[in-house]
Structures are given as structure tokens and as C-alpha cells.
């Protein structure tokens, strides 16, 4: 069984929000709902000044705080290592939103449950890749099997020493960033 992850190269991101729109389209979200954010970080001082765009979505933590606190057991990890929400069990208590350090979970007020990025697992199981990965015009994201040392993603992480966001939080994310 593969263990899926995404590598993100922020040096290539131009902040166009295509991934966000593709995601909203794929998941049938409303304009103000999203599983995907483009955070902006400014560094340096004029005139040597830089703005970095950092795409952010559920990190599919291996040690997921959201899963640990969910009272109903609605959150579970699939065999491919994707953190999923059992829609029939979620009561909408929002404890998972508080527990997620990356603040990537949102309330779906129609269904009354909490939802988030799920790596387009339906597309992936059918042999495709997540919509944000395939849509990106500058190919910021690489999707693949973290357990296969020969995969493009594993080689990318090894070559660039890509790291997850805030590894010190102990969540063991499956999304890795190359930021310089």
C-alpha cells in the first residue's frame, strides 16, 4: 500500500490561486469555502525584499491531533495514509478545528459537519492525482508515494531537504516544503 504525500516548492508559487479554485470546483465548494489557502509571507527589508507564497492545506498528519480529539471517532486514517472524515458520524462539535495546528478544517454548514482536504482520494484511487496538483500552472506540487524511495516525490524531498511545516509540533505531516 502506498503512503501518499505532497511536496510543495514555494519558490515556484506565483500566488495565482488556481489550485484553490480547482479544489473548490472538484469538491463542489461554495465561493467562500476552501480546503486550500495561499498564505503570504514577507521577508527582508526594502530594497532587498521578498514575498513568499505558501500554499496550505490539510497536512494529512501521521500523528493527527484532529483524529485524537474527535469524540465520535469520525476522523480516521485510510490505508493510504489520508486523514478522512466519516460524514455519518461527525456531530459538528468543532473540537477538531481547535486541535488542528494548521487551521485547515472548515465547517460545512449545509451538512453540519467539519470537512477538509482529502487528497482527492476518489481521483487518486482511480489512478489520477489531486486537482490542486494537476491544475497548478507552475507545477508547485508533486504528488506521490513517500514509501517508494525511487518516486519523484521522495527524490525531490531528499535532494532539496524539503521539510514539513512546524515539525516541532510532532504531528508528522505528509506534506513537505522546499522554501528556498
Amino acid at each position: 500500500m502506498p503512503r501518499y504525500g505532497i511536496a510543495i516548492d514555494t519558490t515556484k508559487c506565483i500566488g495565482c490561486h488556481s489550485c484553490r479554485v480547482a479544489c473548490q470546483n472538484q469538491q463542489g465548494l461554495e465561493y467562500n469555502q476552501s480546503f486550500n489557502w495561499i498564505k503570504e509571507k514577507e521577508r527582508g527589508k526594502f530594497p532587498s525584499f521578498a514575498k513568499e507564497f505558501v500554499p496550505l492545506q490539510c497536512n494529512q498528519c501521521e500523528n493527527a491531533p484532529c483524529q485524537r480529539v474527535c469524540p465520535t471517532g469520525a476522523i480516521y486514517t485510510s490505508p493510504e495514509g489520508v486523514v478522512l472524515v466519516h460524514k455519518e458520524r461527525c456531530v459538528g462539535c468543532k473540537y477538531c478545528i481547535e486541535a488542528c495546528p494548521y487551521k485547515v478544517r472548515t465547517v460545512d454548514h449545509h451538512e453540519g459537519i467539519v470537512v477538509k482536504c482529502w487528497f482527492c482520494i476518489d481521483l487518486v484511487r482511480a489512478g489520477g492525482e489531486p486537482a490542486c496538483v494537476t491544475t497548478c500552472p507552475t507545477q508547485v506540487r508533486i504528488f506521490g508515494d513517500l514509501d517508494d524511495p525511487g518516486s519523484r516525490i521522495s527524490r525531490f524531498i531528499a535532494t532539496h531537504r524539503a521539510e514539513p511545516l512546524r515539525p516541532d509540533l510532532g504531528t508528522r505531516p505528509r506534506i513537505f516544503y522546499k522554501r528556498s
Partner: protein
Amino acid sequence: MPESAWGWLIVAYLFLAGAGSGAFLAAVACDLLAPDWSRTLARAGSLAAGPLVTIGTVCLVLDLEAGLWQPWRQIYLVSNLSSMITWGVIILSAFIPVAFLYAAALNEITFVGRFAKKYLLHLEIVGSVLAASTAAYTGVLIAVVNGVPFWNTPLMPVLFMASAISTGLAVAMIGAAILDINTIKTLSNFALGHLIFLSVEAVVLMMFIFMSLTRSVEAAASADMLISGVLSPYFWVIVVVLGIVLPFLLSIVEYYKYGELHKYLVIGADLCVLLGGMSLRAVIIFSATPPQVI
């Protein structure tokens, strides 16, 4: 106000569960330590505990979404023993009936109460354990949350426990005044209780704020919101001055001028404690600052 997934309903829940369990503990303490002259207070505390915790639990349920529209989903709430909400549901389901039964027994309400009176001491012991668990649990609930570094400290349950006891005592004192305004004189005996518990609360609150300033940037950002930021008027005026300092000073006067303090000042001091307790929960929930992840 900064965004938080939880709002006033959760604030009310944390406050009412704390005040209710504190009132229970106050009632038991009065009944065991001074059953002769503090009887009205014990009765008031026992009568208030069950309803307060129940209303708090209703607030929690009202904050649900799918679980409110399709109530049968609530059965799943006890699925995950590593979730503090699961524990909370278990503790509350045990505490609420015990609290009502205790009120019935102490006040000899109906035949159930008269029967339960035979087991009063048992109810007091079991109920006190459950009340203390409820009060502490409301703090643990938010202390285990890694998504909000400000909450993520073992001081949180200590602070909520201290606040639960002082607000519980205030509830019992107001209740006693309602049941029998003549008890107002004996209430002076409890001014000492207020002095002790308000001091404990003030010390823990101070430690919590100071330690947050150095714990992490995010915890410091939240603490700054209370000390000098957007929430500072509420923190200083309502939580600190009205909620702790004023009732503390009034309790000193009450203690020394035994039974002489005007009755509205006695009750006013207790109302201030309640206002402060509710506002303490509010500023803590609303100052949540997530980790800086990028």
C-alpha cells in the same frame, strides 16, 4: 474579536459546568462542616448545581450542528476515549443525576428524596468526586488542544477549578439569600471562603498570564491581547477589577464588619464573582491564537 470555532455557547458551557460543580462542592462542604448554621447555603448550593450543569450541557449540545439536527448521532460522542469530549460526556452523564438526587435528598423533596436521604453521605462522596472531575475537565478540555498554544498548559485546569469553586460559592450565597434573606448575616461566615478562593484564583491567573508571555510566541500573542490588546478592557475591568478585586475588598469588609454589610453589597459582590467567572472563560476562548505555521 479574533475568530474562533467556538463562541459564546461554549463559553457559557464552561462557565455553567464550573459554577454548578462548584455550587455542589460548596453545598457538601457546608453540610459536612457546619450543618447547623450553614443549612440554607447547603440547600441553595445543592438546588442550583444540577440545573446549572444541565443548562451548560444544553449550551454544548446547541453548539453542535449535525449532532443537533440528527440527535441520534450524539450516541457516537462516547466513541473515542482519547477525546476529552468523550470523557466530558461520561462525567456529565454521571454527575447530573447525582446532583439532582442530592438536591432531592438534602431538601427532602418527594419520596425519592426521603429515600435518598439515607444515603446522603454516599451521595456527597460520589458527587464531590464527580463535581471536582467536571470542574477540572472543563479546563483539561481546552488544555489538551495543540491548535491553541495559549490554552495548552497544565495550569488551565487549575485555573478553571479555582474559578469553579469561587463562582460555585457565589451561586450558593446568592441562592441562600433568595431562599431566606435573613441568612444574609450568616453569609459573612463565608466571606473568608471567598477571600481564600479569590486569592487562589488571582495567583493562578497571574502565573498563567506571566508564564504565557514566555511560553511561546503564540501564547504570548494571546496574553498580550488580554494585557494590552483588543480584549484588555474586558480583561482588566470585568475579569480583574469587577470579578476579583472588588469582591475581594467587599469580602474583607464583610468579614470584619460581621453581618453589618448592606445586603445588596453582599449579593452584589457575589454577582461580580459570577460576571468575572463568565468573562474569564470568554477572554480565554476569544484570545485563541493558532501556531504560526508558515
